[in-house]
């Protein structure tokens, strides 16, 4: 991917002349100079000059001078790919390249996965901390959005925090208006709308996270994946982050329609184990589940240890 430089330079200057004729002469000579410069640089097809000149007339009897003002802006773009930096511009191949880059950021994040069972949903993620000195109890990658909807991510943690905050607010606003808990589909759609807005606004970048939203409402257990582009899909089982292709292949083999929640948790642990570097333990994975009781819970390390023992 070629890199790209855009330089914007702006020069403004004012001048005052005694008479209109002088002013016109100054303008003409300035314009000549700039035209020469432009045609010189245009030969290399890399530079665009923009300039404009403005005249203002004497404002009062006390001011016999005429003010002129000129502004020159210089834009030079080197390289052919002028599309990869600007988020809101399509590339010739029809892609929004920033979103592709965001998906790459997601793909290099820690693995996370979700499985929808017949009577609940489980989501799990690796919790690789940068150093053994980090207090792992303070790191919570799986979060609640409502009492019956939980979410996990792959990608950039800070972006995830922002999205969780926004989603929680939207869920609560719905609850306040209708006095009813928000259906999972509606919350997912509103979160996806937020993510899409950040792909079509000025001065912002897309979120560098993909979310797995797990919930249980009147329509039963549901699992949704939301991408940085704002598209969302309902999955029976899905994985994201590093090692996603191995994890998905493993899930495809192991998934059955009538799985129960505990089986799903075992399968989730086995899938994480597939691509795990090092020893898997309750300190470096996080699991969240929701069953027919419609209460989303993050499992305690002790509970994770129990499941790990069952899987061995």
């Amino acid at each position, binding site marked *: 991917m070629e890199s790209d430089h855009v330089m914007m330079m702006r020069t403004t200057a004012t001048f005052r002349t005694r008479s209109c004729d002088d002013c016109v002469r100054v303008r003409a000579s300035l314009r000549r100079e700039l035209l020469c410069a432009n045609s010189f640089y245009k030969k290399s097809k890399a530079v665009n000059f923009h300039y404009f000149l403005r005249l203002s007339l004497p404002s009062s009897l006390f001011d016999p001078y005429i003010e002129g003002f000129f502004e020159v802006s210089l834009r030079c773009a080197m390289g052919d790919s002028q599309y990869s930096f600007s988020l809101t511009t399509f590339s010739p191949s029809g892609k929004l390249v920033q979103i592709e880059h965001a998906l790459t950021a997601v793909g290099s994040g820690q693995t996370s996965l979700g499985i929808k069972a017949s009577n609940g949903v489980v989501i799990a993620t690796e919790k690789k901390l940068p150093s053994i000195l980090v207090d792992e109890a303070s790191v919570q990658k799986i979060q609640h959005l409502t009492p019956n909807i939980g979410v996990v991510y792959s990608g950039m943690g800070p972006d995830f925090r922002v999205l969780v905050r926004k989603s929680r607010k939207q869920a609560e606003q719905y609850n*306040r*208006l*209708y*006095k*009813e808990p928000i*259906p999972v*589909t*509606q919350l997912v*759609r509103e979160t996806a709308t937020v993510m899409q807005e950040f792909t079509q606004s000025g001065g912002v970048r897309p979120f560098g996270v993909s979310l797995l939203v797990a919930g249980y409402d009147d329509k039963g257990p549901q699992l949704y994946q939301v991408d940085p582009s704002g598209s969302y899909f309902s999955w029976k089982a899905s994985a994201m982050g590093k090692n996603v292709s191995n994890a998905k292949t493993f899930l495809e083999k192991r998934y059955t329609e009538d799985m129960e929640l505990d089986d799903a948790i075992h399968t989730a642990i086995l899938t994480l184990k597939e691509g795990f570097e090092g020893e898997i333990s309750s300190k470096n994975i996080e699991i969240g589940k929701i069953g027919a009781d419609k209460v989303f819970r993050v499992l305690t390390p002790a509970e994770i240890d129990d499941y790990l023992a069952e899987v061995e």
Partner: protein
Amino acid sequence: MSIFEYNGSAVVAMGGKNCFAIASDRRLGVQLQTIATDFQRISKIHDRVFIGLSGLATDVQTLYQRLVFRHKLYQLREERDMKPETFASLVSAILYEKRFGPYLCQPVIAGLGEDDKPFICTMDSIGAKELAKDFVVSGTASESLYGACEAMYKPDMEAEELFETISQALLSSVDRDCLSGWGGHVYVVTPTEIKERILKGRMD
């Protein structure tokens, strides 16, 4: 002369056994002059939720249009009808949005909830919800309606008996109120059908 009494109205809703009835008068007046004798105060939101609005007629119509709009969007987004409790919360929120310049109407909401249990409620013009199990009233004839309903109401009435009761209560109350009357419009709703009937009372 209160602004709520400008057009004149009477609306009542009663809950029965797995059914509900909602009724209103038909007069539209401008103070003492009768302008129309077929004014629609009760509107269907969907097959299981009805809303009757009493008070200033222009706000009745506008508020109804706004609520239908919100419900249609809800139906499209969520692919389901609104439950009566949810709808009542929505109406309450919409009315409170205009707390310092309110819609001058009092809604009566009636619907069939989960398991076909009837749901009725009323609110004041700024959204204070009032749930009831038996009956709710609103409009210029509300005081007479309270008395008549209290006397005539029995719990767990079937659809036909409920129709008789609500009609008698409505007609006798609007007879005592000069600003409402000119007949009645009654909807009796069961899980299987909606029966709409026009009553002929004292045409004054």
